């Protein structure tokens, strides 16, 4: 019996804990295999640690808007949104309808780009370099749209308690609509490709199957849950901002394998595209931008628990006001916290070659995922994820 150990370092955006001096070891999935089959998974933890929760307590709650956005660059809009909504609930502020529509527009554009990037990465580890490049090229259109709306390609810095920080005029609105028209056929093409191309489907079908019971007992959220038929979407449950007013559907699939999860993401991207077009054509008039000089300076006592549907799943913030300008406590639970740490059970029984595919289908916030350490028969070797995917598979 040969013992193979696979260590895949991934780093996660988890703003845990206040002051932690040297903590930076990425989360390590230590996978033990007997031959080619996975028999044990250990989560060796360490997080991408920047002491964010403490920083929230050390800074005024307005600075917190900008800190929260920088917890995760890929889904910064949703972080800022859920934090700002929590603050608004404590302050008793209500943004105008126009501001709410614009906020949702920013979040949905972000959902599209985030889903595109994880699918591009999936294509890349399967060996499809061309598809990776094509998706990234088309993703640039979405970044352009985001830039026209918010002023920033990646970091939007768009939110402020009470509304948003910039408005759009008709010229910008038409430009964004044009871009959305161009993206639509591309998204549909990629979805079709993932559905029918045998090189993709052979590697993803029946890999990493999760049953609904596994999902809820382990607290897995987002497209992972929806890919197994669990119909949960914070946008439909909390109906925050304008999700109760605009027409949209919760996407679910029942197969529960990696392909279902990736297809849920393509379907959601197309659904988001529909939402963006609806928003732009039904934008209410009025003020959207907040006059920052008139905002209150003190965060009153009270507690708020706000949630948002980030591209990766349910993101929750629990904010406790202190009566001063600094919050008493801000607790952040990112979707990857559950999706990656609690999912160690799901690799058992599959081949080592399937491990990167399953991991990428969970959409970890990837920072340095290019390399893995393969220890076979006591010999240590650095391999790329793509090489692991090409290893022998057993069924």
């Amino acid at each position, binding site marked *: 019996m040969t013992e193979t150990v696979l260590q895949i370092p991934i780093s996660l955006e988890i703003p845990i804990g206040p002051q932690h001096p040297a*903590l930076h070891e990425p989360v390590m999935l230590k996978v033990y295999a007997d031959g080619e089959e996975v028999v044990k998974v250990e989560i060796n933890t360490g997080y991408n640690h920047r002491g964010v929760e403490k920083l929230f307590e050390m800074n005024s709650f307005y600075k917190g808007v900008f800190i929260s956005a920088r917890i995760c660059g890929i889904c910064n809009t949703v972080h800022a949104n859920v934090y700002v909504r929590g603050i608004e609930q404590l302050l008793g502020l209500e943004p105008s309808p126009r501001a709410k529509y614009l906020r949702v527009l920013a979040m949905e554009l972000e959902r599209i780009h985030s889903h595109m990037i994880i699918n591009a990465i999936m294509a890349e580890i399967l060996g499809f370099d061309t598809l990776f490049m094509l998706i990234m090229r088309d993703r640039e259109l979405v970044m352009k749209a985001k830039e026209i709306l918010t002023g920033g390609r990646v970091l939007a810095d768009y939110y402020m308690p009470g509304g948003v920080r910039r408005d759009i005029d008709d010229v910008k609105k038409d430009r964004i609509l044009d871009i959305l028209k161009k993206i639509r056929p591309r998204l549909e093409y990629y979805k079709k490709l993932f559905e029918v191309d045998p090189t993709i489907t052979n590697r993803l079908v029946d890999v990493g199957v999760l049953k*609904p019971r596994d999902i809820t007992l*382990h*607290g897995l959220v987002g497209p992972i849950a929806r890919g197994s038929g669990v119909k949960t979407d914070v946008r439909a449950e909390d109906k925050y901002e304008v999700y109760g007013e605009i027409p949209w559907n919760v996407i679910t699939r029942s197969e529960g394998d990696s392909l279902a999860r990736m297809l849920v993401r393509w379907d959601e991207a197309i659904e988001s595209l529909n939402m963006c077009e609806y928003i732009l054509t039904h934008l209410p008039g009025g003020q959207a931008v907040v006059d920052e000089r008139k905002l209150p300076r003190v965060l009153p006592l*009270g507690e*708020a*628990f*706000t949630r948002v549907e980030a591209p990766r799943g349910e993101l929750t913030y*629990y904010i406790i006001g202190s009566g001063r300008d600094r919050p008493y406590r801000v*607790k952040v639970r990112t979707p990857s916290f559950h999706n990656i740490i609690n999912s160690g059970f799901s690799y058992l029984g599959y081949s080592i070659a399937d491990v990167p595919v399953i991991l990428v289908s969970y959409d970890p916030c990837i920072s340095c995922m290019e390399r893995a350490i393969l220890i076979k028969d006591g010999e240590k070797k650095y391999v790329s994820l793509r090489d692991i995917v090409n290893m022998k598979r057993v069924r």
Partner: protein
Amino acid sequence: MTEARSSELDPKQVLGNLVIREEFVKPSRRVFVVDKSVIREAITRLLKTYGETSIYISTIAGVDRFEQGVIEVNYFISILPRKEVIVLRTQLSRAEPVIDTLIDIVPGVFAGENETYDLLGVQFNGNNTLKRGFFVPEDVVGKGVYPLRKDAKW
């Protein structure tokens, strides 16, 4: 009791005599304060009533209430058929914060219980995966510091 009817039940009815008092967290999320000794009973009742595939534990948030000498552990639970999030709030003494684990009933508390242990020092009885240094770096662990406590110095 058929599935359809039980999913409509109000959680207050399910928890019944376990609730010490009710509070709320904005935006109108109900908080049920329960004694820490009944947390397993409370969760089991919720799981039995709504079904294992209809609820999940969304967040475990520990809060150091320094002034009151108490560490609060809040379990935010999402009840899907009711589209509602409720909070089970327990209060542990700051001097000896101990509570029963839920890991054998709900394996998904693995991440949350480990985090709360490492950062606040809450002991979850029966969870043998708990270890210091899960998140906190070695030098802080070496000083016996729980970083998220209000009086933590490192």
